């Protein structure tokens, strides 16, 4: 799973029929672990949790998002699995001072110790 912030929503009229009725969120990952996918943004479905713009969320990748929605036939591979209330980082364990950064684009960096809660400046999160 990865930690990310919801920066927007995508609407599409023409889309796969099984995606009808699901909210598609644009999220920006913090320090993604998978180098093959180091994109600045990621689109994830939100089957149950009703996350909104500015929320920090945990994104689950792979097969669980399909089971969480309608099963193996769903054309998705990323879903919101939790909405973060609070996040704590131990500076000593994280190593040399390094902010928890967004990937891609200008980094609204986070101070180590606490996830910043104010929303990203308007316009930053647009695709």
């Amino acid at each position, binding site marked *: *799973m*990865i*930690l990310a912030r919801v920066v927007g929503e995508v609407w599409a009229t023409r889309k796969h029929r099984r995606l009808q009725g699901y909210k598609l969120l644009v999220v920006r990952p*913090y*320090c*993604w*672990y998978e*180098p093959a996918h180091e994109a600045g943004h990621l689109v994830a479905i939100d089957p149950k*949790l009703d*996350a909104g713009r500015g929320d920090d969320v*945990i994104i*689950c*990748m*792979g*097969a*669980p*998002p399909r*089971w*969480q929605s309608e099963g193996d036939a769903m054309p998705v591979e990323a*879903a919101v*699995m*939790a*909405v*973060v*209330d*609070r*996040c*704590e*980082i*131990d500076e*000593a*364990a*994280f*190593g040399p001072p*390094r902010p*928890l950064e967004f990937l891609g684009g200008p980094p609204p960096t986070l101070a180590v110790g606490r996830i910043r809660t104010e929303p990203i400046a308007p316009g930053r999160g647009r695709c």
Partner: protein
Amino acid sequence: MLKGRVIGEVWATKKCPALAPYRLRLVVEQGASGASTGRVLVAADELDTETGRLVMVSFGSGARNAIRPGASTNRDLVCECAITQVIEGDSAEEDSERDVSR
């Protein structure tokens, strides 16, 4: 599997109900040299690991099997990363500690 260091914790009230008993920990990946790469992931933790410990993280169905065995019965776990081992001693770790003290 991936070697990492537990650096923190995430609390979430709204989450997959099957994962409610487990803590969600932030883990930073450790490279081959023992230094952290800066990539951070979230892993379910059933071992109650202390912050700062080196751990092995399993992915995909391996992670779900670690939490609850049964490939067809653990599909309610919306989870693809889990801490499955706490590393006690590691030569790479000793090397990196030596680097820090230098």
